[in-house]
């Protein structure tokens, strides 16, 4: 097991390296850099040429991309994420609290998604091909059946404007968390709902379920103690994959609900062409993604005794 964990942790390094490489490749291909994005639209660049050259030099933007890549990797190895070109502040200050926000939102949304996904998925599997199936699947897939911003606006309108239960403006407190977590949770529930349904259908047709019935176990016992644990493996896999969406893909939710996480930051940063920020966000979310999936892999052994990483 320890060997496996070490091996997997070591595997993170080439992946992170690959991701950074890809990031710099993209950066090289994108025509504008942070400085011209920063200066364009305020004054003619030629008049600010000196200032622009200054900043380019300071942030190594004048170097070819592979040299920038080398410098960045070197800095990251020294735990230095650099400075935002736009705000001239250390990236870590920009990203630190947003990362925590994102984790909080992701975790809360995950709970919502799991509850919604499992309930609708199980209902729909158990009542396969009935109207209950159609209805609970529709509920489970509600979130992903409309663009996130639309769902977000509708929820704000209902819960904040009409009912006045929850605040519109995100202030980072628990109340502000509820709506974005619900929205994001509902969006992510769809995949879980579907996976739950199909793996429950698979499991329910297995011989050991018939054995349990033949033993005279009650239906609810069979559903929750015999079927669900077996279906959980694929559900867990899906959860692992979703962490990626929750980390980087929540930007619309973050924008709408004013929940300031790294998704929002990343999208803005790429619009500002502020690549030090973008790189750091990619680094952090990819690292988290890989790490979470390692955890998920380790959880497999706990969910399913057949899987073992010990030789």
């Amino acid at each position: 097991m320890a060997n496996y964990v070490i091996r997997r942790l070591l595997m993170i390094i080439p992946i992170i390296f690959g991701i950074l490489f890809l990031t710099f490749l993209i950066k090289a291909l994108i025509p504008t850099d942070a400085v011209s994005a920063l200066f364009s639209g305020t004054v003619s660049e030629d008049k600010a040429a000196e200032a622009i050259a200054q900043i380019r030099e300071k942030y190594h933007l004048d170097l070819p991309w592979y040299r920038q890549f080398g410098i960045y990797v070197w800095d990251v190895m020294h735990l230095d994420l650099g400075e935002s070109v736009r705000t001239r502040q250390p990236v870590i200050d920009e990203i630190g609290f947003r990362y925590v926000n994102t984790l909080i939102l992701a975790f809360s949304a995950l709970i919502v998604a799991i509850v919604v996904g499992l309930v609708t998925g199980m209902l729909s599997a158990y009542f396969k091909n009935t109207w209950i199936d159609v209805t609970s699947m529709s509920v489970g897939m509600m979130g992903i059946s409309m663009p996130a911003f639309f769902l977000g606006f509708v929820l704000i309108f209902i819960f904040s404007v009409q009912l006045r239960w929850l605040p519109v403006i995100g202030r980072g407190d628990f109340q502000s968390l509820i709506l974005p977590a619900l929205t994001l949770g509902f969006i992510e529930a769809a995949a879980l709902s579907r996976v739950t349904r199909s793996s429950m259908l698979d499991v329910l047709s297995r011989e050991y379920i018939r054995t349990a019935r033949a033993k005279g176990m009650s239906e609810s016992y069979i559903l929750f103690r015999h079927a669900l644990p077996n279906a959980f493996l694929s559900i867990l896999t899906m959860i692992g994959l979703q962490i990626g969406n929750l980390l980087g893909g929540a930007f619309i939710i973050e924008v709408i609900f004013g929940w300031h996480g790294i998704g929002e930051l990343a999208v803005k940063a790429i619009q500002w062409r502020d690549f030090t920020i973008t790189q750091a966000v990619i680094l952090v979310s990819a690292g988290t993604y890989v790490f979470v999936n390692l955890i998920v892999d380790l959880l497999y052994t706990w969910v399913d005794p057949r899987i073992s990483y010990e030789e």
Partner: protein
Amino acid sequence: MTDMILEEQQTFGKPTGSNFARAMRRLLRHRSGQVGGGVVLVLVFCALAGESILPYDPLSIDPINRLKPPSAEHFFGTDELGRDLFSRILYGSRYTLMIGLVSTVIAATFGITMGLLAGGGGKWADMLIMRVVDVLLAFPYILLLLAVVAILGPSLWTAMIAVGVGGMPGYARLIRGEVLAQKDAEYVEAMRALGASHLRILFGTILPNVLPQMVIYASFTIPLAILAAAALSFLGLGAQPPIPEWGAMLVDARTFLRTAWWVVAAPGMAIFVSILGMNLFGNALRDVLDPKEMSK
């Protein structure tokens, strides 16, 4: 022995046909298949029907009649430029569907090739391709999309390419898994025993057998692609005006939620119903195309 052939004949009914025909029959009896299939059919009809069924020109503006609520004249009302929303929704269905299909085809073509080569192309190919897939999967999805758009410049096609690129690793992973699962199946071994080449086995034998899984997966990635394109529109990088792609329409209309709800409701409901329908249809497909179901 002739006697035996005769007897065998007797036990043979009319051909039950291809797996496809059986799946279609099963689909027709599936509740989600009925609901979702109906929606998908309507959608495809609208997309293919052409401009002759449109009551108004979906593109010509009429600022005097802007923001008119739904009426007998304009079923869904008019938008901020006075265009008939009903016509725009009908007309836009082709773009919305096109985004879903084209980007899925892009994702599937490259993803399948990667997956097949990873699953069947030896240890090093597998190692290399899967690391690339890992990198793409760990790379924040929306940033990948934005990066592609930033490189290629925004347009409907770019949006489709971007969404396609974003979907690639999913296909590669799925196909690789399926290939690994099928690689040692007896019918594959049988081909190998006959001396079939590696590529023939990969593309001629394994690929057709993993296709149902692909179709199921595609049925879920098509709606996801439509939503991803809508997310790009949210950033102004999706379909370009005046193309009435639903996602872009919804994005442009969002400020009217309180003052002219119909402008928002028309594309919003169109997307909601279509995507829910597609998802339900996908569910039904999964049920009827699943290999376990097929052998019943």
